[in-house]
């Protein structure tokens, strides 16, 4: 579930408010959006992909809350990893989309 919106990193663009498929965030005039409905989070990580400021952190635990430490997260390099590996925005061209290898990987697993 979404655990953190780092206000210092947030640019207030509200992209997460729009992109979150389950409407977890709420825009706040003149301020970063608020995580208003954490219980509706479906742990899909999509908000991170749309956050160009890398200000969001989704914990993989879909069944309960996970306390997180903002400073430790900032230092961990985990913020923005999904977006980077997906080659979105400024990362375009740095991480090629090799999803097409899926077939060959399945074949390899079958020993073919």
């Amino acid at each position: 579930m979404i655990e953190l919106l780092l206000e210092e990193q947030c640019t207030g663009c509200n992209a997460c408010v729009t992109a979150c498929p389950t409407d977890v965030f709420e825009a706040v005039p003149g301020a970063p959006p608020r995580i208003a409905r954490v219980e509706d989070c479906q742990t899909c990580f999509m908000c991170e992909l749309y956050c160009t400021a890398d200000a969001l952190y989704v914990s993989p635990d879909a069944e309960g809350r996970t306390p997180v430490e903002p400073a430790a997260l900032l230092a961990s390099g985990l913020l923005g990893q999904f977006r980077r590996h997906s080659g979105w925005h400024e990362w375009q061209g740095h991480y090629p989309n090799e999803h097409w290898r899926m077939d060959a990987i399945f074949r390899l697993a079958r020993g073919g």
Partner: protein
Amino acid sequence: MRSVAPGLALRRDVLVIGGGMAGAWAAAEAARQGASVVLAEKGYCGTSGVTATAGPGHWWVPPEGRRAAIAARNEAALGLADPQWMERVLEETWRSLPGLARHYDFPRDEKGQVQYRALRGPEYMRALRAQAEELGVLILDHCPALELLAEENGRVGGARGLCRQDADAPWQVEAGATVLATGGTAFLSGLLGARNNTGDGYLMGAEAGAQLSGLEFTGIYTVAPARSTMTRSMSYAFATYYDADGHEIVVPPGPDNTATLARALLAGPVTCSLHRMPEAVRARLHLVSPNVMLPFVRWGIDPFRDRFPVTLHTDGTIRGTGGLRIVDAECGTGIPGLFAAGDAASRELIAGAISGGGAQNSAWALSSGLWAGRGAARFARGWRPGARLRGLGQAGLRPLRAVRPVEIEAARATVLGEMQPYDKNFFRTQAGLRRSRAVLDTAWGELRDHALPGHGGRERLRAREAAALLATARWSVTAALARAESRGLHRLEDIPRIVPDFAHRLLVDGIDTIRVTPDHVPALPETAA
């Protein structure tokens, strides 16, 4: 943010409900045919639904390979599929997917060959959104549909819902034709990306009088790290599983390998290791599927060395096969003005009694989306607005008896409680199904009779979702009870074999009183595109 409060009233030739893969293809195609189109999406068209979070590999077979592919697939479908529909889906997918190159950067392999088959979900949905917008489709994000509208004569003439990011203001679209593309439902299991998929289209379609088919084929599950939603299966092709004592669980190869896991999970915790994944694959995994490693990395698990606990989430009708029954080549539902596409429709036509996951479902979402879009645009031609329309929504919107508080969250939990447990929905027994039916009936009756949640739109949406979930679960267990055999994704412990008398599809109709009738495979009508 768009502001439409206090309400939005629109007239368009075609209304598409649901903006996942099928809906986005449908909307674009209807627009291409010259229709004015509006697409209403519960979440955000681009991130919502199970396409966006996955990496759909399409059923992608060059013309010379089709005869063999269809023959193999038809045999696997256990008698319930139709080779003519398979042929159509293969051809439509082959012809249409490359057209997305304006918006999706199809990569090339080492030999310079453009790779079309498997697309990354977020990029695919971003491209489909761009395509729809370029063609002039009006997209309403965060605008779930709550009910269909119909004329006195039964023609479906649009829908209404609410704008949940706009003070829950109501919206109403009067349309010449309507496409249901609301996806399947995983009954609120942890299946990745499935939270908005609560079976709303099934209920809305049934309220308009449409039939459903194949709802018994929901006994299907996907493995994920425990407590996570990461039901991406590729890595598990290399998995080794262990029981609570650390002994390796011998998993037979083949499509039914999750049955072994489900049995093991009923006996106790199961752990997994991916140490058999070759180094070369590990090194590229983040480029193939960037989300797969997220849970491991964030939990500090090295899945190639450590053993991590796993679970199974039910796929329900998503990688199961049932949905609204398709009655013609343009994906009509048999109700004038109402079409269905993607997981909202039954995929038995091409998948039969087994799963269409892994290739067929996305080819179906694409093809059925295009056909429904085309069919809807054609139906709407010459249409004139202004007819008297009435809302068709029942349970959760228009209670039959005195309004009183109904625990909506409890109703939702009831559905999960009957459809997720392995000893209820994976390994079924007739007695167990009857018990599930009784539990679901009680919750259904309460909601239908008394629920009218407050004034908040969010509560109304939750109640409608609960109604759709309960209705779908009831259809599923009722169809399962009617199929007194085991076939494909329906396994009866009591009768663990195929009974030749059941080599036909089962239709369900009715919402309160559910009727199950055999459907004898209809020939494809001549209007095939």
